[in-house]
């Protein structure tokens, strides 16, 4: 029944998406390609992922608008081309192709779920264009045409576990996630990491739930039971999207307090907390590379212009928005350095570009197309914001191939010439390992 529903929903939302995408493309003034530089925005504006992705579309429009006010790029105005892939993974590929072939965009900012990224990846490689991917993800990938501005597992999951281990003295771990590729891979990495730190297999509980799971009663009860073995227990949550609200509500209802069993989440940010009463969640944790509560001049300006742009004083900012902020500024800098928007030259100019991030430092593009970021751990406050309780002393470089998985520990990616390889095996000295 699930499959049936999915197929049906794909079919129909594909139609709806096509119609809406077409409208969006028509809505843009059809200017000649010469006087503007087109930037593609590939985020779902309808369907299940609209809840997260619409904000990213808005922040891109704001960044482009600001750049145009500063005089554009290479003396030309930037022109956003917005399409709606409607939370439908195959449609992402179709829309990406349309953006590159028909609209002739110079770069695309988009995608949220890993499955949508995997769906567009071949298109970007075939048509040789650039994708900026702004969301934390499971790693195990590096493409010449993709720049990963979100966190790799070593920039989010592993520091969070380290924090719990050292500061909260956690000995027993619940790895709870939604059943798809990001949580499964992340949990595999974490499990290997925990075992390497001497955690026994019986002290790790792994639990997966379907997308949009809403009845958490027995799982929360299970977590309580698992936590009563006399050792300090924590939950590492890779629960995604809509399922989080009922999960946290149930935690609050059953009285699971952060002082007893803290939950650290990798997919819960300011935006997700906006729909819940956070008083019972006081002290639960999240690991990100950015929080709205970070007090730096750059962030204050960013929040101010975001609120002004959306004309809504209650709008919050979050980590993937910062990733787009960094990615967009990196692209602008690389285009200026290359003197052209031609993807090949921009890709080569990207590596080594450093731009200020919003947490008071500089983020640099690494040869593996991931970036350097600080890792912050925040505790949920009563006002739905996070209070930063721990920050890595320096920047953490993104590691695309995890060192904790046997398949990938020998692989590295380096897109500089002459290596120019996304999965170089340092043991065999050959390009082409897993993922080739």
């Amino acid at each position: 029944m699930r499959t049936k529903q999915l197929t049906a929903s794909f079919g129909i939302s594909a139609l709806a998406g096509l119609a809406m995408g077409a409208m969006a493309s028509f809505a843009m003034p059809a200017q000649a390609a010469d006087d503007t530089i087109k930037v593609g925005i590939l985020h779902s504006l309808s369907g299940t992922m609209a809840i997260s992705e619409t904000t990213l579309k808005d922040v891109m429009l704001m960044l482009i608008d600001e750049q145009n006010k500063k005089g554009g790029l290479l003396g030309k105005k930037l022109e956003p081309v917005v399409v709606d892939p409607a939370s439908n993974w195959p449609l992402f590929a179709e829309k990406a192709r349309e953006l590159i072939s028909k609209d002739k965009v110079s770069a695309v900012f988009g995608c949220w779920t890993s499955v949508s990224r995997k769906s567009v990846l071949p298109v970007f490689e075939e048509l040789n264009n650039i994708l900026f991917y702004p969301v934390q993800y499971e790693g195990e990938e590096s493409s010449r045409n993709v720049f990963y501005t979100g966190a790799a597992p070593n920039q989010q999951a592993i520091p969070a576990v380290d924090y719990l281990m050292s500061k909260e003295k956690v000995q027993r771990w619940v790895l709870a996630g939604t059943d798809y590729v990001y949580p499964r891979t992340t949990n595999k990495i974490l499990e290997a990491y925990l075992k390497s730190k001497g955690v026994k297999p019986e002290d790790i509980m792994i639990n997966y739930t379907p997308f949009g799971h809403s009845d958490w009663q027995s799982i929360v009860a299970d977590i309580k039971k698992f936590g009563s073995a006399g050792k300090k227990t924590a939950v590492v949550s890779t629960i995604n999207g809509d399922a989080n609200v009922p999960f946290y509500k149930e935690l609050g209802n059953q009285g699971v307090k952060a002082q007893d069993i803290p939950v650290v989440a990798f997919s819960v940010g300011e935006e997700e907390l906006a729909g819940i009463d956070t008083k019972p969640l006081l002290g639960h944790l999240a690991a990100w590379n950015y929080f709205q509560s970070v007090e730096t001049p750059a962030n204050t300006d960013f929040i101010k212009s975001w609120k002004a742009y959306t004309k809504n004083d209650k709008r919050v900012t979050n980590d993937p928005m910062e990733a787009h902020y960094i990615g967009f500024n990196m692209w602008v800098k690389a285009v200026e350095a290359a003197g052209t928007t031609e993807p090949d030259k921009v890709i080569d100019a990207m590596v080594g570009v450093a731009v200020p991030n919003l947490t008071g430092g500089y983020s640099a593009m690494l040869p593996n197309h991931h970036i350097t970021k600080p890792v912050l751990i925040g505790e949920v406050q009563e006002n739905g914001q996070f209070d930063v309780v721990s920050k890595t002393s320096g920047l953490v470089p993104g590691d695309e191939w995890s060192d904790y998985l046997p398949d990938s520990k020998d692989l590295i990616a380096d897109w500089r010439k002459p290596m120019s390889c996304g999965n170089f095996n340092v043991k065999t000295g050959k390009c082409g390992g897993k993922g080739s």
Partner: protein
Amino acid sequence: MRRALRWLMAVCVVVATSTAAYAADLRPLVQALGSGGYSGTEKALAQLSEAGDPAAVPVIEALQAGDLYVRKSDGTVVVARKSGDAFTLTDPLTRAALGDAPAAAVEKIRINNSLRRAISASLGALTLMSPDAGVRRSAADAVFKSRDASALETLSAAIAKEQDKGVRAAMEQARAAILLTGEAASKMTDADIQAATDTLTARGDRDALVLLNMVAGSGASDVTKKLAAAAVSTLEQKLAFWAALQNLWYGLSLGSVLLLAAIGLAVTFGVMGVINMAHGEMVMIGAYTTFLVQEFFRAHAPGLFDLSILVALPAAFLVSGGVGIIIERSVIRWLYGRPLETLLATWGLSLALQQAVRSIFGPTNREVGAPSWMSGAFELGGLTITYGRLWIVIFAFAVFAALLVALKRTWFGLSIRAVTQNRPMANAMGIRTARVDALTFGLGSGIAGLAGVALSQIDNVSPNLGQGYILDSFMVVVFGGVGNLWGTLVGALTLGSMNKFLEPYAGAVLGKILVLIFIILFIQRRPRGLFALKGRAVEA
């Protein structure tokens, strides 16, 4: 909470008049709270609670509430409460007013989880002698959790003085916890250890189990370990029994959610035979109506917020029902007897409604608050029952009963049954069938709206709310038997408890798949579901 505050105030008056000397002693410690980051605050807090002076209680309470700030100009630790844009400052010990300060002039003393634990531990130790039984009770619970050996003396004194039975039991449990886990354990006699483990076993909850497990696995003496292990196995058996009951409750609770979601569909699909794929969106509209009603209450009558849900119920029924009638009049009535076209048209409608809501309210979740009588949980034996779920169970059965009465005992119900069983004959008898169709569809949609009010309490209020329930609803109605309300009831409860009993063993994902396979096999055997309609109505 309020009682605690009142007591605190009483203490403060006493402190302010008689113990100015105390305040002077505490001053450097209070001052130290504001420096050295988390670890500095924690160290100062430990010294403050070691001083054992109740005058420190309001300071620690202020720290817990996040009201303790450092004045930037001279580094003094002050209590600051927001009034308008500025902060009103008071001295944490003497409570003397220190004037106002702009937000930029003070910096909050931040606390993290480990500090929060330390705070409740020291508040517990300091308030064991409080004149208020409720405060003493929570103090005992806090000490039970912290197992702070330094509180042992006060605790013993408090137990000797304690009159209230419940509070004394809590204190004795706290003492047992300290004795068993602390250094004192090695000096205890076997009988004392036995008594302590018995006290914990009598407590009989998970917290006690945590402790006993800890003792059993620790470096304590062999006797202690053995006694603890025996207590653990007794306790585990008891908890396993309660866990099974708890699971039954979860099943009932999930079943009632399914019942609520499906019962409207049992009218539109079951009675009228319309395959209404937009049913989930009626639920969603009900939830958004709740949101709007709550917004209204928040803006105009925040004091009556607890009643907002009661107002939302009729509002959601009318709004969803109205939308349902419009849909029936404009789309569905042209498609009677053409199930495939109905399916496609209503599916399209559901997408359109979702996108409309997304455009009006935005794609992000809307916050629907829980009234105070629906928040929290209570213990029933070893069961934890959350009020929200309890009310939803009661509500689901109430709606079911009301619908049953409406269909069986009212003129409107009679017309509905007449029209669905034999349309031409009903027409001939003077029933305006078109109107009955519209009202029936409106009734089904309105009930879906009621479900939305309930679901807004446990799920996301987002445009996708309905999608999560449409499949389950169809499953329940088909499994229970199309056209039979009792079938829907039994179907919902069966599927709910089946899901919950499979979940612990098979996991949530596999559990759902197994339920699905079960339904497929069941439908093979009994194509008309659990309670099949018989007779002429079936063919109509």
